Every structure is written in C-alpha cells, then in structure tokens.
C-alpha cells in the first residue's frame, strides 16, 4: 500500500532537525507530565496547543505524538512505585505492578513497563504503516450496536481484574457505573443525581475520582498504618534498567504481540481508545494464562500484555482521525484541530494528495517509541530515588499533585472536592476488601455503555434483537454470551464438585497475604 518512494520521502521529512527536536522535547515533557500523579496525557496535549500555533504542521503534530506516547508510558512509574496511576490507561494494572515493587522487584517492573510499552508502540506503528487506511475503513463499520458489545466485553474484564473476590469486585463496578450516571442525561437532558448543583450537571469526571481513590486514599492509609509517620518505603532492590527483559521475552513471547494486536484493533475504534485496550488486555492475559492464580501478586505476565496494548492503541487511535476526521479520543480530537489550523485537512484526500504527511505522522510514532528506551533508562535510574525519599517529604508532594491534577480537569475547586471525597470513599472500600480498580472501569465505561445502548434502542425502536442483526454485532454478541455462559457453567460445576470451597480458602489466604504486604506490615 505504501510505496518505497513515499516511505523514503516521509523518512527524510521526519529526520529534519526541527521535527527531531520537537519529538525530543515532547518526550521529555511527556515524561514529566506522565510521571506526576494526576496529570494526564490529555491535559499535556491541551497545554501544548498554544505552542503549536507557532510551529510547522509536522513538528507540531510530532510534539503531540511524542508527548502522549511518553506520558502514557511514564504513567506506569508512579503506579509502580507509589500505587498511584499516572494516567487512566495504567489504572488497570497498577495493583499488579505495585505488588512487584512490594516484593522488591521495582526495577524489573519499571523496566518491563518501558520496554514493552515501546515494543507495543513499535508493533502498533508498523501495523498502521501497512494497513492504515484499510483499518480505518473497517473501523467505520462499527456503529453503536458494536460499541455496546465492546463496552460489555470491557465490563466482563472486571471479574478478572478485581482480584480474589469477584462479588466485591462486582459491587465496586456497579458503584462506578452509578457514579457515571450523575449529570445531565444525554438522551433527554434530564438532570440525574445533581441535587440542584450546577457543577454536578456536568457529571463526575473519572480523573479526580481516580486521583482520589488511588493517590489520596493511599496517603490516608499511610497515616493510619504507621505510628511514626516515618514508615519505611518498600525495599527497592537493585535498580538495573532493562535487566532480565530478555528472559521475560523468552518466557512470554506471545503476551507482547497479543497485547499489541489487541491495542491496535481496539484503539482504532473511535471513542473507545487505548484505556479500554489496557483493561481488556489485562483480563485476556489472565484468562489465557497458565498461572492465573499468580495475578495480583506481582506477576509480570499481565503487565506485559496490558502495557504493550495501551501504547499500541495510542497510535491506532490516529487512524480514524486522519482518514475520516473522526477523533478516537480527546488527544486526537485536539490533534485534528491543530491539523485543520495548519491547513492540513484530515480525510482520505490527505492520503491521496499528500501521502507523505500521514506516513510521516506514523513515523514519528516510531521515533517516539524508540526514544522510550534511552529516556526510560534515565527515568528508571532517577525513579529509584523516589523510593529513598522519606515519606514525610513525598506525601506533601503527592498531595500537591493530587490537588493540581484534580483542579486542572475543569479549572474549578469542584474537581478537588470530588478528589477528596473519592479518596475517603476509596480508603473505606479498601479497608473493607472492596477493590477500587473496578470503580474506575465502571466510570470510564459507564457513559460509553449507556450512550450506545440508548442510541441503539432508539434506532431499533426498543427491539433488543437489534443487537444481533448486524453481522459484526452479532458475532461480538454471540462471543460475549458464550464467554458469560461458559464462566457460569464452570463455576456451577466447580461448586457442585466442592472445588469452590478449597479454592475460596486458597484465595482468602492469598488475599490476606496481599493485604498485609500492602499495608506495609510484612
């Protein structure tokens, strides 16, 4: 599809000093934003917009591309070291990577985060280079019916990411979905759970909730578990960046590829994006793993799959945006705006009239992902110092980041209040054994699920069979029903054979272990 000429000319455009400098600065900037808890890739992009006014089209886009790729990878750092996800995309596997740190494997967790992020990104970019416009055509066949099923698939992963207690995970998920209904309902514009408060009409954004539930509740937990306030941080172990990656690559050769493939396909669907890809990848990895019982205890397998999927999804989100002008997420929405402003109109004509441009954009993904290796090396080296900082210094810094991040969502104190309340709720939930990751999943997927369900119902006039009438929807629907039935039958059979009792005991033991290590008593 891509001729050699176009590749060569695109490469020469990307290799211009202005573009390379933009990529480098974007990457460094993204590294900071991603590593600070509560500041997201979307926010980093929005802040870049005024700067892009003064730049040529390609450097402007390169700046955005590299900063988001880096931010989403660097989001794993605070997640791994402090159990505070830097971006929503890393919320799916934060518990897992933090457990690795608890077990003294921080170096390995950070290294594999960067390494497999870069791998996923590179695989994703390669796929795009070859199949870009084709993939976009396929993604255009997805309507609300298909999106509904994808959202359901995302919700099913809740059972897999909620750790030892599925029932409590389900409760958390429902809680997240409930919060997602707050605000003006999109169908009729009717206010729901707003109590006459203007701010609540805008709904509850998942960013302050995520910051609160992970970061602020972690601070609360720190205060209640340590008597002196000078409690020691987990032992870091020896920090040797990228050590032992080869072994992981040999041990789990398919995880990275499967994660990247999933990320690329889910990311290309407008409006679903890389965040969801990380959740599904993590759940899928657990489903197909030979050792699913190790998940949640600091096991690298799921991490590899999830972290490669969100970087792969990031690049493919640009395809529907570039080919049809339909942005897949907030970042590409901003990028489409920047392109228009630069007189580059996204659309299929862009690929015909000026194929160098889209090819060059995809190539900047290559360069940015390659940059992950050296910058990741430096970041891991620096990150070790984070853990050696005394808690009395790091807690106020985290607190400031929490306030900044939640304020910046909509530039109001409302976000800060949401963060504080979510923090207390999250703390109480964890205390009582309710996992918090499913709340975030519910909040992210709630609107997607609801909107697409309502849209579909309005189209079919309330006929539920409509979800099986379109070929792709029908396939997805049958697959999901099969997964659901299969899980139900399996658990019923287990219950009948008495296996459930044994398993439950093992899980409770496991949960106790995890709870102990988490509160720092171990």
């Amino acid at each position: 599809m891509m001729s050699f000429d176009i590749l060569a000319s695109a490469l020469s455009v990307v290799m211009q000093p202005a573009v390379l400098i933009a990529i480098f600065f974007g990457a460094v900037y993204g590294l900071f934003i991603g590593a600070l808890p509560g500041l997201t890739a979307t926010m980093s992009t929005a802040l870049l917009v005024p700067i892009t006014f003064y730049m040529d089209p390609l450097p402007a886009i390169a700046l955005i591309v590299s900063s988001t790729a880096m931010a989403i990878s660097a989001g794993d750092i605070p997640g791994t070291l402090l159990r505070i996800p830097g971006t929503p995309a890393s919320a799916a596997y934060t518990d897992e990577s933090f457990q690795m740190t608890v077990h003294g494997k921080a170096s390995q967790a950070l290294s594999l985060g960067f390494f497999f992020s870069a791998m996923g990104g590179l695989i994703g970019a390669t796929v795009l280079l070859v199949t870009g416009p084709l993939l976009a055509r396929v993604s255009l066949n997805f309507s609300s019916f298909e999106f509904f099923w994808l959202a359901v698939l995302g919700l099913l992963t809740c059972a897999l990411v909620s750790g030892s207690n599925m029932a409590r995970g389900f409760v958390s998920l429902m809680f997240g979905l409930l919060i997602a209904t707050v605000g003006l309902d999109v169908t009729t514009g009717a206010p729901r759970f707003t109590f006459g408060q203007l701010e609540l009409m805008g709904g509850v954004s998942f960013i302050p909730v995520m910051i609160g539930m992970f970061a602020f509740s972690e601070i609360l937990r720190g205060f209640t578990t340590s008597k002196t306030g000078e409690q020691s941080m987990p032992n870091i172990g020896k920090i040797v960046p990228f050590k032992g990656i080869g072994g992981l690559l040999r041990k789990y050769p398919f995880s990275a590829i499967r994660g990247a493939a999933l990320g690329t396909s889910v990311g290309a669907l407008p409006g679903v994006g890389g965040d969801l890809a990380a959740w599904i990848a993590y759940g899928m990895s657990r489903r197909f793993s030979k050792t699913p019982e190790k998940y949640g205890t600091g096991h690298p397998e799921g991490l590899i799959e999830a972290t490669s999927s969100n970087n792969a999804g990031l690049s493919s989100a640009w395809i529907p945006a570039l080919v049809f002008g339909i942005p897949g997420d907030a970042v590409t929405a901003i990028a489409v705006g920047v392109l228009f402003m630069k007189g580059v109109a996204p659309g299929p004509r862009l690929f015909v009239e000026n194929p160098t441009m889209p090819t060059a954009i995809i190539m900047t993904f290559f360069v940015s992902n390659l940059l992950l290796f050296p910058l990741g090396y430096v970041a891991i080296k620096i990150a070790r110092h984070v853990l050696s900082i005394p808690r009395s210094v790091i807690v106020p810094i985290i607190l400031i980041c929490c306030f900044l991040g939640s304020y910046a969502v909509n530039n109001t104190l409302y976000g800060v209040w949401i963060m504080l309340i979510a923090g207390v709720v999250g703390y109480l939930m964890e205390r009582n054994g309710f996992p918090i990751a499913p709340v975030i999943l519910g909040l992210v997927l709630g609107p997607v699920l609801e909107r697409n369900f309502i849209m579909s119902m309005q189209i079919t006039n309330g006929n539920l069979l409509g979800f099986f009438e379109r070929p792709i929807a029908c396939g997805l629907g049958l697959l999901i029903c099969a997964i659901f039935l299969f899980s139900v039958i399996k658990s019923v059979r287990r219950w009948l054979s008495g296996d459930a009792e044994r398993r439950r005991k093992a899980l409770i033991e496991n949960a106790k272990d995890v709870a102990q290590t988490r509160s720092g008593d171990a």
Partner: protein
Amino acid sequence: MSPQFKRIVRTSVAAMALCTIAGSAFAAWPERAVTIIVPWSAGGGTDATARMVAADLQEHFGQPFNVVNRTGGGGLVGHAAIANAKPDGYTLGVITIESTMYESQGLPGVTPKDYDFIGRYNADAIGINVSTKSSYGSAKDLIDAVKANPGKITASGANRGGLSHLAWAGLLNTLDIAPDASVWVASDGSAPAMQQIAAGAIDVVSTSPAEARSLVEAGEVKTLALISGERSELFPDIPSTDEIFGIKWSPMPFRGLAGPDGMPKDVIEALSGALKGITEDAKFKDFMKSRGFSVAYQDADTFKATVMADYEGLGKTMKAVGLAK
C-alpha cells in the same frame, strides 16, 4: 540606614502610592491577564476559534488572554460560569446558541439576560447529511420519504433537545410534518453521529458542513441542504432549505464573545472594536476558512438583538415541536 537611602525609600513609596491611585482612577483595562471561558471541550470548533481570537486579543491589548475550558452539561456549566463571573472585564467567555435554549429545556442556571454582549465572530448554518449509499438525491426526496414513512427515518447529531435536533424537528414542523415523524437518536455531539451514519446505522445527521467535511470528501456522506435562509459563502453549491421549500426557518448557530452582566461600558467598547479588527484580519479569515467556518462579525448591539431573537424564536419552536419543558 543612611538618610539618602531613607529618602529613596520614601520617594519610591510615594511614587508607588501615586501610581496605585492613578491606576484605580483611570484604570487602563486590561492591567492583568484576562480569562476567556469556553463552555466546550478542548479541540472542538468553539475551542479552536476561541483560542485564535484570544491570541489576537492578546496581541492587540498586550496582556495575556487565557482560554479555559469549562465543560459539561451540554455547555450549561461553562455558560453559567461566564454569567456568574465578576463583571470587571477580566473574565469573558465565548457563548454559543445553546445558551438561549437552556431555559426552555427546563435547566436553570443561565439565560441570555445574564450577559453583556461584546460581539459575534462566527455563524454557520446546520446542514442535512445523508449517506452516499442512500437513494436520496435531494432534500426534497428525503422530506418526501419522511412524509411517506413516518417513524422510519432515523436522524442524529446531538442530544435530544440540542440545536441539531431542534433545527431538524423545526424544519419538519415548518413543512407541516409531525416533528416526531423522523426518530431522533440522541448522541453526544456530531462525531458519534457521523460514525453512526458511516456505519449505516442511521439515515440523517444534521450538523455543520465543517464537521461533515472529512466524510464528505471521503465519499461516505453527502450534504443535501443547509437549514438556513441563505447559502453559505464557503459552500456555495449547497442549496438552502428556504429556497428549496419556500419556507422561513433559519436557526443559525453562532459563536461570540460575551461577559457577565454589568461590565464597564468602555471595556465592552474596546473589546468589540478589537474583535471587529480581528474579523477583518486576513490571517484570521484564512484560519476560519481552513476549518470551514464563516466569519460573521456583529457588533455588541446587533449581536444582542440576534441572541434575543433566537431566545424568543427557538423557545417558541421548542414548544411547538414538544421539546420545551
């Protein structure tokens, strides 16, 4: 402390005090950064144009004009934030036609009466878009199909009661067709609706030609007509519904600068004048054209009259088509 130093301190304190008094008496607005609230998300059309206007205002007045997105509730949160700001000229906002509709929708918080108007810089009619795979060759075909098969044709483009919906339902109403003869599929803005039409799940999307442009160029979607009284300068080949059907129905979405009620008169005048200059600037015109937006300046009084006319007219139509609460 040496006497000389004392004297210096004394004079400078006196000078500073003098400056402050002079400053408050003949306040040369703007003395500090101005905030522009945008009620819609970053990256959208309103945001992009607001940032461009802000950059030009900054150049004109020599003080930073910072764009702040305050989103949610179909623009209600941001529109209310503009209206409730301190009317000192340091918090302004970009308002859109939705601000005239909240009251009729039964949403408390803001009406156009809560604003001081500065000027309009853009207005673009809403287009009727259908899939190229459909059999509708013209707006007449489509309307005939709606008439012949009530409840069969699905349309989308915004939430229920949003302007896209009102434009479409109002058009049907003006043509003496029941507004619910075409099913409205509520969507969160035009992007998901465009995705739906490309996937073949719905029949019609009513949205601005700028937002449909990429898919039109891709050959997936065609724009049949503009729901408007006149053709657009930027898309001269697209007929208007008024000329096709011989009716009068022109809901014109606008973007303009406004501030909270009670701002100083001279500030409004200065801003309105600056905005006029910006809209006549070639660079700004090129930018707007590249995004498919028309430049349509109106001064403070004309803008106010336009908004108030919409406030009244749209409210009436919303009642007629059953969208008012």
